[in-house]
C-alpha cells in the first residue's frame, strides 16, 4: 500500500514536472492602430478653432468651442487647451490694453473690461507639450507654418502666439503651430484656416487683394505645404473646414444700409464710398450709426453732416472681391481634401444657411437680438456671440457636428453628434454680474458701450493683418 502511495506521488511529481518544463511562449504580436484611451485629436486653426467667443479667449468659450466638443464626442479623455481664466483675453483697445470678454451689463449694454495681467490668466501654461487645441486667434494661413511668436506673426504683435506657442519656455523654442501639432502626431486632426486671410480686410471695410486679403491665386502656395506636412503624420485622419462667406456674419449684416425713421421715412446713410457704379452693400457693426444717438448725424435729409468712412462699409465691388477670394480658397480646400482622401466640413454651407428670420424658435440663426435692428429673436437661438463674428455656444455646436459628420463619412466612424438642442447660449449673459439673461428681450437701446466699441474695433485690427 505504501509503495502504491509513493508511486502515485511520483506520478504527480512527473505531471507537475511536465507542466513546469514547458517553455515560456513568445507573446503574439497584435496590431493596434488606435488606442481609444490614448487617442489624440488635434485642432489647428485660428480664433474659430481656439474657441474665441464674445471678443475674447476664455475658458467657458474654449469649452464650448467645436474642438473640445469633438474631443468629448470622440470619447477622448485628455484634450489640452490653453485655458484662460475669466474675464479672458481679447484684442487690445485703442490704448493697447487687452480687453476681456463681452458681456451684457445691467443696463443691457454690451461692454468689456480691461485685462491688466493677461498672462496671469493662463490656467495650464505648464502643460509640457503643445496643446491639442492649437487654434490661435488672429492666425493666418501664413502664420500657421511660419509664426513662432507675436513678433513673427503676420500682424507683427499678436500676443496670442506667445501665450499659446510658449516658445520662450517650450523646447526647442522655435516651433510654429504646425510644428507643435506635428510633434503631437494626432490620430485625428481638424484644420480650419483661411478665414483670417480674408476677414481682416473685410472687417476693416477696405479689402484689397495682396494688401489685407490673401489673393485666391496665392493662397494655395501657403496652404498645400501645410497639408503635405500633415500627411506625414502616420495614420492621421484629417478633416478640413472650408471658410464661411464673410458677409454671413452679423458683423456685416446687422446694420442696414437704409435707416427707417419711424413716422418720417427711410433714408440711406451718407457714406463716402457709396456710388451708383459701386453702391455700398453692407454697413459694419463698428459704424458710428450703431449708436442711435449718432444716426441723425449720418442722414443728410435730416440735416446730418457726417458721412460713414470707407472703413465702415463694403461696396459691391469689395463684396465681389471677398466672395471671389472665399470661393477660390474653398475651391482649393475642397480639391485638396478630395485628392488626399480627407474629409471636408462645409462650414460655408452651414453659415450661409443660417436664417435671418428668428421667428422660428426651433432653429437658430445668425442674428442676435441684442444687436441693433436685430430681428425679433432670442439670443439663445443665435449662432453668433456678442462680437458678431465668432460663433456662440449653439454656433460652435453646429460647427462641431459638421466636422463630426465629415469624420464619420470619410472614415466610417460613428462619433455621436452633439445634441444641439441641449446647448444654450448663456455666455456673456449669465456671466454678467447681477444681470438676468434677456430671453426674448427686444433690442431698443445702444448696444455697445464706448469700451465695447473700442474693443470691437481692436478685434478688427487683430484680425486685420496685412497679407
Amino acid at each position, binding site marked *: 500500500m505504501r509503495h502504491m502511495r509513493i508511486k502515485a506521488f511520483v506520478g504527480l511529481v512527473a505531471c507537475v514536472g511536465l507542466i513546469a518544463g514547458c517553455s515560456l511562449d513568445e507573446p503574439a504580436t497584435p496590431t493596434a492602430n488606435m488606442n481609444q484611451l490614448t487617442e489624440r485629436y488635434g485642432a489647428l486653426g485660428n480664433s474659430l478653432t481656439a474657441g474665441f467667443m464674445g471678443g475674447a479667449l476664455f475658458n467657458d468659450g474654449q469649452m464650448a468651442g467645436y474642438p473640445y466638443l469633438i474631443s468629448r464626442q470622440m470619447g477622448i479623455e485628455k484634450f489640452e487647451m490653453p485655458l484662460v481664466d475669466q474675464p479672458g483675453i481679447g484684442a487690445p483697445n485703442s490704448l493697447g490694453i487687452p480687453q476681456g470678454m463681452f458681456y451684457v451689463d445691467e443696463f443691457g449694454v454690451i461692454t468689456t473690461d480691461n485685462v491688466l495681467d493677461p498672462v496671469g490668466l493662463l490656467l495650464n501654461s505648464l502643460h509640457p507639450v503643445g496643446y491639442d487645441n492649437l487654434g490661435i486667434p488672429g492666425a493666418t494661413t501664413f502664420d500657421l507654418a511660419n509664426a513662432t511668436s507675436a513678433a513673427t506673426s503676420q500682424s507683427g504683435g499678436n500676443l496670442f502666439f506667445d501665450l499659446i506657442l510658449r516658445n520662450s519656455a*517650450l523646447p526647442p523654442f522655435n516651433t510654429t503651430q504646425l510644428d507643435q501639432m506635428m510633434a503631437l502626431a494626432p490620430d485625428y486632426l481638424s484644420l480650419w484656416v483661411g478665414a483670417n486671410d480674408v476677414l481682416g480686410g473685410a472687417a476693416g471695410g477696405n479689402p484689397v487683394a495682396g494688401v489685407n486679403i490673401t489673393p485666391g491665386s496665392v493662397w494655395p502656395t501657403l496652404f498645400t505645404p501645410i497639408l503635405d506636412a500633415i500627411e506625414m503624420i502616420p495614420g492621421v485622419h484629417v478633416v478640413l473646414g472650408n471658410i464661411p462667406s464673410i458677409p454671413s456674419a452679423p458683423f456685416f449684416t446687422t446694420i442696414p444700409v437704409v435707416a427707417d425713421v419711424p413716422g418720417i421715412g427711410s433714408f440711406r446713410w451718407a457714406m463716402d464710398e457709396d456710388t451708383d457704379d459701386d453702391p455700398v452693400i453692407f454697413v459694419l457693426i463698428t459704424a458710428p450709426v450703431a449708436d442711435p444717438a449718432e444716426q441723425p448725424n449720418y442722414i443728410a435729409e435730416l440735416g446730418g453732416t457726417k458721412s460713414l468712412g470707407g472703413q465702415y462699409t463694403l461696396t459691391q465691388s469689395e463684396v465681389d472681391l471677398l466672395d471671389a477670394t472665399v470661393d477660390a480658397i474653398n475651391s482649393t480646400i475642397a480639391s485638396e481634401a478630395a485628392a488626399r482622401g480627407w474629409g471636408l466640413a462645409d462650414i460655408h454651407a452651414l453659415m450661409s444657411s443660417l436664417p435671418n428670420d428668428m421667428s422660428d424658435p426651433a432653429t437658430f440663426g445668425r442674428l442676435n437680438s441684442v444687436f441693433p435692428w436685430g430681428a425679433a429673436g432670442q439670443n439663445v437661438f443665435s449662432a453668433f456671440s456678442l462680437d458678431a463674428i465668432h460663433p456662440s455656444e449653439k454656433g460652435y455646436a453646429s460647427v462641431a457636428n459638421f466636422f463630426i459628420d465629415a469624420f464619420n463619412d470619410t472614415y466610417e466612424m460613428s462619433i455621436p453628434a452633439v445634441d444641439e438642442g441641449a446647448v444654450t447660449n448663456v455666455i456673456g449673459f449669465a456671466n454678467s454680474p447681477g444681470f438676468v439673461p434677456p430671453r426674448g428681450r427686444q433690442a431698443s437701446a445702444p448696444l455697445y458701450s464706448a469700451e465695447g466699441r473700442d474693443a470691437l474695433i481692436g478685434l478688427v485690427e487683430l484680425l486685420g493683418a496685412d497679407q
Partner: protein
Amino acid sequence: MKRTLLNHSLVLLLAASVLVPSVAYPGGFNIYEQGSRATALGGAFTATADDPSALFYNMAGTAFLREGWALSVNVSPVLPRNKFTRAMGRTAIDFPGDPTAETKDAVFFPTGIYVTYRHDDIWSAGFSFSTPYGLGVEWDNQSTFSGRTESVNAQIEGLYFSPSVTFSPWSHLAIAGGFSLVKTSLELNSIRTTTFGTDNTTYNIADVTLEGTSRLGVGPNAAIMYRPSDRWSFGVNYRGGVLNEFRDDDAEFVQRTTGIGPVDDAVAAELAFLNTKSANADIEFPAILMTGARYEVNEDFGLMVDFIWFDWSSFEEIRLVFSDPDIVGGDPTSVAQVIREDYSDGQQWRFGAEYRISPKLRGMVGFAYDNTPQPTGSVSPLLPDANRLDYSLGLTWEKENLEITAGYMFVDFDERSTVVDGVGQSFEGFDGTYTALVHIPTIGFSYYF
C-alpha cells in the same frame, strides 16, 4: 508618451506616471507563498494551519499546535520570467525600441519566520515576519527596451511583523486577534526619452530612480478556526489593509547626454530643478479575507479548498507628489500626478490534497486559480499581471520535534494582451502582449521545543 519635449513639469509628470503604477497592483504583487506546507498544498491552508506558518494563513490555528514553543522558517525562492511583444501600429511609433523583450533572470526570496507559543488549551500566541507583498520585474537590454519610459526595473518589498494572541474557549473553536507592523521598501527605475530633429529621433535623456522606505504602517488581523469533528475543519482569516506612506523619499534624475547641445543644456537645467524634489505617495496594501474548509476522507487523506478575496477595488488611483521638503509652508512648485488604476476585487480559488505516505512522510499536491484584479488598461511593463493557474506539490518529513517540508509550485500565466479587437487599451498607450511563468521551489523547517 515618448513624444515629449522637455521642461520641468513634463519630466515631473512623466516621472510620476512611470514611478507610480508599479507600487500597488494585483495578485502578482501579493505573494501568498509564506509557508512551505501551504505552498505545496496550493495555498489551501486556511482550515489546516497546522504548523507555525498558521500565523500567516490562520492565526487561530496556533491553538491546535503542540504545547510549548515552536519555530518555523520558510523560504520560497521566486524565479519569474516574463516576455513582451510590442503591438504593431501606433505603439510602435510612440514607443521606439526593441519590439520584443524579456526580463532578466532573477531570484527573490519571500521568507516567513514564525514563532508560536501554546501556553495551554486556551491561550496561545505568536509573532511572525513575513513578506506577503513584494515584487521584482527587471527588464533586459534596458536602454533599447521599447517600454523603458514605463519601467525598466521595479522592486518592492513589504516586511510584515505580526504579533497575535489566540483564545480557544472550547476545544473545537479558536479565535485570534493581532496586528501587523509594516515597513515597505521600493525602488523603481525608468528611462526618460525625448525626440529631437526633423526625423523625430528618440534619445534617452535621463535615468529616473525612486527609492524609498515607508513610514511604519499598521493593519489589524483576526481569525477563526472551527473544527466541529475529526473530519471537518473550517477557517476564516482576515488580514487588514495597510497604508504605506512614503514621505520625502529620494527621486533621482541622472542625465544621459545626447551630444546635442540644446537638448543637453535644457535637460541639465531641468534635472537640476527636479533633483531638488522629493517624492511623496500613499500606497495601500489591500485587505485579504481567507476562507477555507478541510475534509478528512480518512485518517491518511485530506482535501482542502480555500476562497481568498482581496480588496483591490479600493485601488482606484495613486496620487504622487513631488515637492521640496525644505520649503517651509509647502513647496509652491510641487507637482501632483494622479494615476488611474481602476482595479476590481481579486479572487482566488485554491485546492489541496494531502496523503500520509508513511508515518513520517506526507505528500501534498495543490492547484489554484488566481483571477487578476488588474484591468487591461493598466497592464504594463511594471507588472504584466494576468489570470494564472498554480500547480504545486511537496513532501513533509517529520521526526519527533522536527518537520521539514520541501515543495515546488509552478505558476502559469495566461497570455495577456492590451489589444482587444484591434483596439489598444493601455492607459499609457503602450500596447502589447505579455507572457509569464514563475517557478517557486520552497523549503521549510519547523521545530517544536
